[in-house]
């Protein structure tokens, strides 16, 4: 074997263009187009620039968090406390408001609380070595619990108009600030994950944390940064959401953590870590936004939409697995 003539290993195999057709993103694009067409056909109000612009608010805030969550899940961890971070950050902004904070201070408070919460999660997971799925269930109760202690059944209102712009303002024509912000965040995370060595180590950790550690990757530090990013994105989402609603209640963004995770998984990120990408998650966010909007136009209540999302989640994950099993069996 050893004396066989040495042959060079090529860098890449010739990719067939059909392999692009089979990719997850292509499937998502098809679904998005399908939903778009169905919506357009079923409602005369759908193809209206302002209506479509309104529809983006259905997903932009969640999708911002989903960007960071995608990296976190690819690295093999998860953060279920993101919605609670929103509640705590929003409450903190409300408190700051009571002390006469202006818009810049409010923004600063929101970002800072998000970062602190992320740091706390990151420390529990990487510093103490605890499993993130349980720890963030704990911090989820803790963060929202603090919001409840501060607010009880009260609400903070009276945010300044300049602050409201973050949630209600438009940059140009129908293009909202939130949409632009989301696009920018998606771009940053896309570049970070796919084009930098940081992104590469995220994949390495997700596929094999021990192997990554043994390859000199600073696993703990990387994961800590990812928790920090997720916290920060939750803080940004808290600013946008608070500004959009104009008020803070402790139940704000309740249940969002599962929607964000659904978005990420639907976007083709493996819940087991190691694979997936930003474009898929962006597409999944758009699909979820379109579906919500379409159902809204058709006067279908939001809860029915949740059936659809649930079924979509199970089918898109399950169908390829089932298909592969059937093929293996027939082979």
């Amino acid at each position, binding site marked *: *074997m*050893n004396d066989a003539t*040495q042959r*060079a*290993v*090529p*860098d*890449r*195999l010739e990719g067939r263009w059909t392999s692009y057709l089979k990719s997850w993103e292509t499937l998502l694009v098809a679904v998005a187009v399908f939903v778009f067409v169905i919506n357009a056909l079923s409602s005369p109000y759908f193809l209206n620039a302002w209506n479509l612009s309104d529809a983006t608010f259905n997903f932009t805030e969640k999708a911002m968090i989903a960007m960071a969550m995608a990296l976190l899940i690819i690295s093999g961890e998860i953060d279920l406390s993101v919605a609670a971070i929103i509640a705590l950050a929003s409450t903190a902004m409300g408190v700051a408001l009571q002390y006469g904070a202006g818009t810049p201070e409010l923004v600063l408070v929101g970002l800072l609380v998000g970062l602190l919460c992320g740091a706390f999660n990151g420390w529990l997971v990487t510093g103490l070595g605890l499993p993130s799925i349980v720890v963030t269930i704990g911090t989820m109760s803790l963060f929202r619990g603090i919001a409840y202690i501060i607010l009880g059944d009260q609400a903070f209102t009276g945010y300044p108009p300049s602050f409201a712009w973050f949630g209600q303002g438009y940059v140009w024509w129908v293009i909202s600030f939130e949409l632009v912000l989301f696009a920018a965040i998606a771009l940053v995370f896309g570049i970070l994950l796919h*084009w*930098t*060595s*940081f*992104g*590469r*180590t995220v*994949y*390495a950790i*997700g*596929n*094999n944390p*021990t*192997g*990554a*550690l*043994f*390859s*000199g*990757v*600073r696993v703990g530090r990387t994961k800590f940064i990812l928790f920090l990013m997720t916290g920060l994105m939750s803080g940004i989402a808290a600013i946008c959401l608070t500004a959009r609603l104009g008020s803070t209640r402790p139940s704000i963004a309740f249940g969002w953590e599962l929607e964000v995770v659904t978005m990420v998984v639907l976007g083709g990120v493996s819940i087991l870590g*190691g*694979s997936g990408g930003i474009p898929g998650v962006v597409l999944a966010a758009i699909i979820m936004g379109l579906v919500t909007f379409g159902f809204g136009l058709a006067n279908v209540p939001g809860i029915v939409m949740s059936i659809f999302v649930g079924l979509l989640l199970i089918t898109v994950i399950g169908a390829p697995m089932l298909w592969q099993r059937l093929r293996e069996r027939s082979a």
Partner: protein
Amino acid sequence: MLHQARPATADSQAPANEPVLALSGISKSFPGVRALSGVSLELYPGTVTALVGENGAGKSTLVKILTGIYQPDEGAIRLSGDEVTFPTAYDATQAGITAIHQETVLFDELSVAENIYLGHAPRGRLGFIDRGRMNRDAAAVLKRIGAAIDPDARLRDLGIASKHLVAIARALSVEARIVVMDEPTAALSYKEIEELYALVERLKAEGKAILFISHKFDEIFRIADRYTVFRDGECVGAGLISETDHDALVRLMVGRPVGQIFPKREAEIGEPVLTVSGYSHPTEFADIGFELKRGEILGFYGLVGAGRSELMQALFGVTRPSKGAIRIGGEVAVIRSPAEAIRRGIVYVPEERGRQGAIAGLPIFQNVTLPSLSRTSRQGFLRLAEEFKLAREYTSRLDLRAAALDRDVGTLSGGNQQKVVIAKWLATSPKVIILDEPTKGIDIGSKAAVHEFMSELVAQGLSIIMVSSEIPEILGMSDRVIVMREGRMVGEYPREKVDAETLVRAAAGIGGNDAFRK
């Protein structure tokens, strides 16, 4: 449940020349490897058949087929002449085949008795587990193999050797005609091994057919009656032990004369590169001190669990020592993480290739460049062309066989994965390369390539620490050998003054070789 001395009637009446179990034409493939191709094997009642072969020869795959873990792609299994299949492990047990597996098949949270009887616990009224009877039966089985273990103890509280005895007890707790033992003595002490041999003799007397898998030749010649040799997934010979000898078996096993396996070439040995002194860990090793010179291959021999891997992982910064110092090139170095070790020029090729070495899921080239990303990227941005260049350079030096460098490393065979791991480290231009069981479980071709490459590396001025449990490899490759036992150094020998017996005695703690022992 227990089947003490009375042999099964069917077995005692069967003539010895009629196999109780016959495998023919068995083939099994996995993605990237053909583990077995058309092998056959026969087991006779009251007979110990040794299955011999190097790591990766397909022995464990065969065991898994026999016990219903894997299904063969082709071939037939005949039990007393009738063709059978074992869709699950349960079916194999029902057919009277029991096995002591190489990996311990045990559960930390269950009690010893529960571990022994999981899947076939004695039931009382209403179908509930009869704990009293289960504990009594377990105690009887344990006593039979001479193990003083409380059946009610929780498994997690036992040591490795005791766990192994529980695994043996588990295999003997079912009424079986065929007992498969996959390297049963690997984790046992001298005394326990003697007791195991006695047990094998008793099982033989009871008329059981025993398949005994081992690397240790003295063991094979001591207890086996017949042998079958596997090489690279094929059956290359079988017969009576009394009609063969050591050399003949080794030749069959490796397929070439013994002297040619290890191509260690003389390299110039220079100044010390790495000096370790008083190196200790709270639980894993103590008082380790040695010097590694430029161009030297330093072998570390010892039994499984002697603390060699733990020592190497501490040197690599995975775990922290409690005491002691390391000097690299005369300069004191504190290594707190693998990243630091790599920067200091120490790299580690781990024993557990799948878990610690290769990162399955990432393409080959990304595996190679992972520790070198700071060199192949610019301001944190990846440069794929640079990555491919680096990966191409080092994988070609190791003669990697793969479809393309952008394929998932998980699709490669064990030997080629190992080449990727080594390529990954060479790309960091290290000074010291630690190889932990570098050829475990890889095919002969890759093995020779790894050995040849080691010679090449030291010739270029690198230094190598090689942990190995294979005596021929240690003897063939090392310039110097250090033996460890129970976390301590118990001997250090230059190449020309060491032989297999010395190593075995020192590692097992027999005789007066404890030069370094306090």
